[in-house]
């Protein structure tokens, strides 16, 4: 048991309806999770599965223009399994629950999400700006279509 190919089926079984499988290129184990179920899913992944996902490697925001994505890459140092977890959010008033009490590493990544993408992170202990200056008032720079004082889009030749 606990081989890479069993990861997605076992999660689908535990969370029917809230989680669906994602087909990505290149092939990898990936799931799409309802924004409302994100905490339940991560608590299950961290504590309950035999796969022991103990390592949150990366948490990224992606602006896909028609929607926003939050992508979690988690791994296990024991079983060496990998999993990509995706959440899709609307571009207006996006909100997501914090998971930084489940994986402490999520703390700063979520602060980045909030300042660079304008995704509101619920129940986060410390929501100050992280990378941007304290007096920043030019919006969320990682959104597509953002324009700032010094930002120039490279012309196509």
């Amino acid at each position, binding site marked *: 048991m606990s081989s890479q190919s069993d990861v997605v089926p076992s999660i689908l079984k535990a969370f029917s309806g809230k989680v669906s499988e994602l087909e*990505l*290129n*290149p092939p*990898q184990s990936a799931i799409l999770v309802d924004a409302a179920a994100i905490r339940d899913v991560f608590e299950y992944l961290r504590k309950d599965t035999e796969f022991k996902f*103990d*390592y*949150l*490697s*990366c948490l*990224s925001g*992606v*602006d*896909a223009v028609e929607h926003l994505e939050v*992508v979690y*890459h988690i*791994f296990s*140092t024991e079983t*060496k399994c*990998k999993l*990509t977890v995706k959440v899709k959010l609307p571009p207006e008033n996006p909100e997501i629950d914090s998971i930084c009490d489940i*994986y*402490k*590493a999520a*703390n*700063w990544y979520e602060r980045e999400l909030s300042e660079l993408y304008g995704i509101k992170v619920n129940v986060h202990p410390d929501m100050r*700006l*992280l*990378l*941007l*200056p304290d007096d920043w008032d030019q919006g969320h*720079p*990682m959104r597509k279509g953002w324009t700032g004082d010094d*930002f120039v*889009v*490279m012309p196509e030749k």
Partner: protein
Amino acid sequence: MDDEKYIEIDPVTGTSSDSGFPTEEFMVNMGPQHPSTHGVCRLLLTMDGENVKHCQPHIGYLHRAIEKICENRKYQMITPLMDRFEYLMSMACGWLYCLGVERIAEVEVPERGEYLRVLMTELNRIASHLIFLATFGLDLGAVTPFLYGLRDREYIVDLFEETSGQRLLYNYIRIGGVAKDLSVGFEKKCLKFIDYFLPIIDDYEDLLTNNPIFLTRTKNVGVLSRDLALDYAAAGPVLRASGIKWDLRRDDPYGCYDKFDFEIPTGENGDTWDRYIVRIREMRESCSIVRQAIEGLPEGDFKAKVKPSFKPPAGECYTRVESARGEMGAYIVSDGTNKPTRLKLRGASYNHIMALPEICPGIKIADLVAIFASFDSIMPEVDR
């Protein structure tokens, strides 16, 4: 006055014999411009005398928006930018990015290219660990390791200059392979360096490893427990010092690392001394990998053909490589055009500095310098 009380301070714990002795909390800004923060990092410390009660890291002083710039560049134009992500181990950054793009676009790298990547990255790892050794000694007040470390790093930098033309930001690893083949006589010079360098590591150890002053400053200082290390996704030598045998070169092999034979040194307690000794042992392992790479170096092409108008298909992947500081990751999203939609970079130093407030309470401010140095954090990797 004969009723004046003599207050004894315990030299180890720093507590006074008179617990009622009043002290006043005060704040200290360590940084942003501070020699021992290795870049521009501000630690806002709440102090009780000389003891740190609370530490709050402030980052972002070196934020150059590399991720945003990358979304605005063609794929081949990004490789020189990647070197700026983490300048002490540029080879690993370039490899990380190219690995991701090659996985999405299914580019096959020739075997000689893979071997050259391993060879250069391991030399770069030794160079980076030498900078660690140099600055770690300096931060603890030992100047000799600084001179020795930089002296020996110079030999490696010369080898890089000969190969790539650069001494710090090499832009050597490209999509599909490497930029240039080895220069004439490189193998001989490199083996000569390894033969010279292995006994030198023993000299470093004579200087520091069992030095009583060094031991007092590092043993049981800044213990990062196994659970905390995992929870904060610490990586590389920091994670291994906490007793977790985890190395991406073995556990999630990329390139041709599965053909190499090497040990993964680990520590026991996760203290500052363990983080030091893990890196020293890693230098020996890297020497062994460099030797294996030169001895097994296959003939043939060093770079696959990649069109100037390179467009990978739509796709996404998260790749990670083991840099000198630990897991370095890149999440690349391609939408089929000649520029990436998203390029998220993840550096291990980011997580190590995030974990700093957990180990700070109760330590002396001088020990904070030692702990920070033992993480070997590098700020461009944190701020991106």
